C-alpha cells in the first residue's frame, strides 16, 4: 500500500508541476469567467438591431414607445391596419423586421401580436414585451387612476405566483435543479475523460520507455495501476477545486462589480420609462446574470450535492480510470491504445445522454435502469438527486452507490488482470480475444 502511495505521489507531483496543468488551472477558470462576462454583457450589444413598426389604429400609444432611444430597437408608428401579406411584400415595409399590432382591444384582453420576418432572440422578445407592457402601464394609470406614473410604481408590487407540489413544497425538484444535477454529472464525466486519457497516455509512456519493468521489480502491477490512477485522480481533484474556487469567487466578484442586481424591486419601482429606456442593455444583462448567479448561489444545496458529487466522482473515476489504464497497458503501441479509446468514449457519451434522458423522464423504467448501471449511474444519480427522490424511494440512492462500489471493485480487479498481463507485452495487436484471455488469467 505504501508503494502505491509512492507511485501516486510521484504521479501527482508530475501532473501538478507540469506546465499545462498550471496554465489550465489558472487560465481555464479565468476563461470561463471571461466567457460568462462576455455572454451576459456583449450578448445584448452584439444583437441585431430591429426596426419595429407599431400598428396602432386607435392611437393608444400616442406615437411613442420609449422616450429615450434604445440601441437595439427603433419603433415607428402606423395607424392603418396592416395585413401580413402586405407587410411581407410591400416595398415600404421591407425596412422593418417586425410589426407590432396594438388595437383597442388591448386594454381589455391585454394581448398584442408581433409578426416577424426572422425569429427574434429571447432577449429581443423580452425587450419588446417589456417596452410594450411599460407603455401600456403608463396609459392605463393615466386613464383609470389619479396617480402619476411615478407614484403608481412606488406602490405597485410585482407579484410572483409560485406553483408548488404539495409533496415538495420547497420546490427542490424544479427543472432548473435538474439541469444543475446534469451539470454536476457532466463535470464528473468531463474530468473522467480528460484524466482518463492522462492515465492512458502515462501508462503507454511508461510502457514504451521501459521504466515499467524497473517499477515492477518493486511493486505489483495492480499496486502500480492503483497508484497511478490515484495520483492522477488527486491531480484531477486539485484542478477541480481550483476551478470551483476561482469560478465561485469570480462570479461573486462579477455580481458585486459589474452586474448589480437591477431586478431588485425596491430599486426598480421608482424608475420611470425615461430612466429605463436608455439603460436597457445593461438592465437586461443584469437581469439574466443575476438569475444565473441566483441559481448558482442560492438554489443549489452545495453541501448536500457536493457530498454525493464527491462519492460519485471518486467511484466513477476509479471505474472508468481502471478501464483507461488497462487499455494503456494492453496496447502494443500508443496508436493501438487510441483506437481502443473509441468504445470507452461512446460509453461516456452514452452516459451523458442517459443523464439528459433521466432529466426528461425521471420516472421511466429506463431511467431506473440507468440509475443502477455503473457506466451511467454517476450522472443519472446526480440528476435524480437534484430532482429529489420521492418519499420512501431514498433507498434507490444507497442501492446505486452500493452497485457502483461493487462494480468498481470488480472492474478494478478485471482491469488489474489485463494490466498485469499486458504491461510487459510489446509490439502485438490488441484484440478482444486477447483481452478476454488476459481477463481470465
Amino acid at each position, binding site marked *: 500500500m505504501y508503494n502505491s502511495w509512492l507511485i501516486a505521489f510521484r504521479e501527482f507531483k508530475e501532473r501538478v508541476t507540469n506546465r499545462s496543468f498550471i496554465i489550465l488551472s489558472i487560465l481555464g477558470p479565468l476563461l470561463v469567467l471571461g466567457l460568462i462576462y462576455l455572454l451576459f454583457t456583449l450578448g445584448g450589444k452584439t444583437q441585431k438591431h430591429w426596426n419595429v413598426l407599431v400598428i396602432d389604429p386607435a392611437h393608444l400609444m400616442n406615437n411613442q414607445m420609449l422616450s429615450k432611444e434604445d440601441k437595439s430597437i427603433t419603433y415607428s408608428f402606423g395607424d392603418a391596419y396592416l395585413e401580413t401579406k402586405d407587410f411581407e411584400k410591400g416595398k415600404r415595409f421591407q425596412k422593418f423586421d417586425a410589426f407590432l399590432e396594438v388595437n383597442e382591444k388591448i386594454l381589455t384582453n391585454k394581448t398584442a401580436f408581433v409578426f416577424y420576418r426572422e425569429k427574434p432572440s429571447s432577449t429581443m422578445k423580452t425587450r419588446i414585451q417589456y417596452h410594450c407592457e411599460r407603455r401600456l402601464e403608463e396609459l392605463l394609470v393615466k386613464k383609470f387612476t389619479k396617480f402619476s406614473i411615478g407614484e403608481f410604481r412606488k406602490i405597485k408590487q410585482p407579484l410572483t405566483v409560485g406553483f408548488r407540489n404539495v409533496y415538495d413544497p420547497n420546490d427542490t425538484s424544479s427543472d432548473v435543479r435538474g439541469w444543475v444535477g446534469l451539470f454536476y454529472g457532466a463535470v464528473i464525466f468531463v474530468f473522467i475523460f480528460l484524466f482518463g486519457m492522462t492515465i492512458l497516455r502515462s501508462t503507454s509512456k511508461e510502457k514504451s520507455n521501459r521504466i515499467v519493468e524497473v517499477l515492477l*521489480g518493486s511493486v505489483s502491477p495492480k499496486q502500480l495501476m492503483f497508484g497511478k490512477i490515484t495520483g492522477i485522480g488527486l491531480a484531477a481533484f486539485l484542478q477541480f477545486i481550483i476551478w470551483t474556487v476561482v469560478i465561485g469567487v469570480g462570479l461573486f466578484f462579477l455580481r458585486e462589480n459589474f452586474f448589480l442586481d437591477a431586478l431588485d424591486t425596491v430599486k426598480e419601482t421608482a424608475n420611470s420609462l425615461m430612466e429605463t429606456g436608455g439603460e436597457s442593455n445593461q438592465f437586461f444583462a443584469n437581469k439574466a446574470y443575476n438569475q444565473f448567479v441566483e441559481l448558482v448561489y442560492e438554489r443549489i444545496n452545495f453541501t448536500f450535492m457536493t457530498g454525493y458529487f464527491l462519492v460519485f466522482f471518486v467511484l466513477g473515476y476509479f471505474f472508468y480510470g481502471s478501464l483507461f489504464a488497462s487499455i494503456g497497458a494492453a496496447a502494443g503501441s500508443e496508436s493501438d491504445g487510441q483506437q481502443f479509446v473509441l468504445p470507452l468514449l461512446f460509453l461516456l457519451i452514452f452516459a451523458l445522454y442517459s443523464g439528459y434522458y433521466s432529466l426528461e423522464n425521471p420516472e421511466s423504467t429506463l431511467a431506473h435502469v440507468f440509475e443502477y448501471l455503473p457506466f451511467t449511474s454517476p450522472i443519472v444519480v446526480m440528476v435524480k438527486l437534484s430532482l429529489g427522490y420521492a418519499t420512501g424511494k431514498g433507498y434507490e440512492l444507497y442501492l446505486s452507490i452500493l452497485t457502483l462500489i461493487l462494480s468498481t471493485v470488480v472492474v478494478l480487479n478485471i482491469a488489474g488482470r489485463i494490466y498485469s498481463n499486458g504491461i510487459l507485452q510489446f509490439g502485438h495487436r490488441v484484440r478482444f480475444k486477447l483481452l478476454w484471455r488476459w481477463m481470465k488469467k
Partner: protein
Amino acid sequence: MLEISNISKSFHKKTALDSVSINIEAGEIFGLLGPNGAGKTTLIRIINKIIEPDYGYIKFKGDVLSQKHLAEIGYLPEERGLYKNMTVEAHALFLGQLRGLSKSDVKSKLDYWLEKFQIQDWKKKRIEELSKGMAQKVQFICTVLHEPKLLILDEPFSGFDPLNIQLIRQELLVMKANGKTIILSSHNMESVEEICDRVALINSSKKIIEGKISNLKEERKNNEYAVKFRGSMIAFVNALWTGFEIIDKETLGDDTFIVKLKMRGDNHFDDLLKVLIGQVKMEAVWEVLPSMQQIFIDLVQTKQEADVQ
C-alpha cells in the same frame, strides 16, 4: 541463497520455461546464459515476482519467495528506462523509497555512489540532459542503492563504453567480495568468463548445463595446446612428428609465431616439450581451453541440430 525448482511457464501455446531448476549459492556471481528468446528474461521476471510461474517454486534464503523479499533484491532489467523529466536525485528518491529506504538513507547512499563514480554534478540534472551511457550509470546506481543481498542484472553492459564496462565489472567484484550474490544475464561472454563463478545455459526454454566455468571448460577441452616461439617455422614443423597436428598459426613479427596444435594418440604435454626443446626458442606453452563463447555456440548449435533431426 536462491533455489529455483522445476519452474515452468507458458504464454498461451508457447512454452517459455520448461522445468528449469537452478541453485545459486550466496556470495557468487552466477551467469545466466542463452540465446535470444531462450527464456532467461522470463526466469528473471519470475525471480522478481513480476510474473508468476505455472509450476514450480523459488526459495529465497530458505523461505518461499514472496513480495517481502523484493526489498532484498535489486533488479536492473535489459529493457530499462527512466522518467526523462525527473532529476537524478528525484529518481533515486523514488526508486530507493520503493525498495524500502528512507529519504535520508537514499540521499546519503546516492552521495556515496555519485562520489564513487565522480559524477556529483549530475545530481540535479534531469535525465533528458544525460547521454545514454550516463543514464545507464544512473540506472545502475538506482539498482544498487538499497544494498540488495541479491542483485539481478539483465545485460548490464549493453550501452556502456569499454571504460565503463570495466568500471561496472570492478564494482560487481567488490560487491561479491562484500558477500552479495549476483545473477548476471549477458551475451558479453568476455565479461561472463572474467567475473562469473558459475553459469547455467538455457536454450529453447530448458536448462542445458549448469556448473563452474572452470569445470565446463575442463569437460570440453579438446587436447589442444599453443606454443609461442622464436625461430624458424620450418625447424618447428620438422621437429614435430606424426603425434601432433597443427591446427592454427599466427605470425608475430619476423621470427615469432604462435602455433595451435592438437595431440594425437597418447601423446602428452611432456612429449610436446621433449620434441621442441633445442629446436626452437620457446617463450610460452599453454593448454588451450574452449572459450565460453565457443562452449555457448557449440551447445546451442548441437541442440538446434538435434531438434532438426
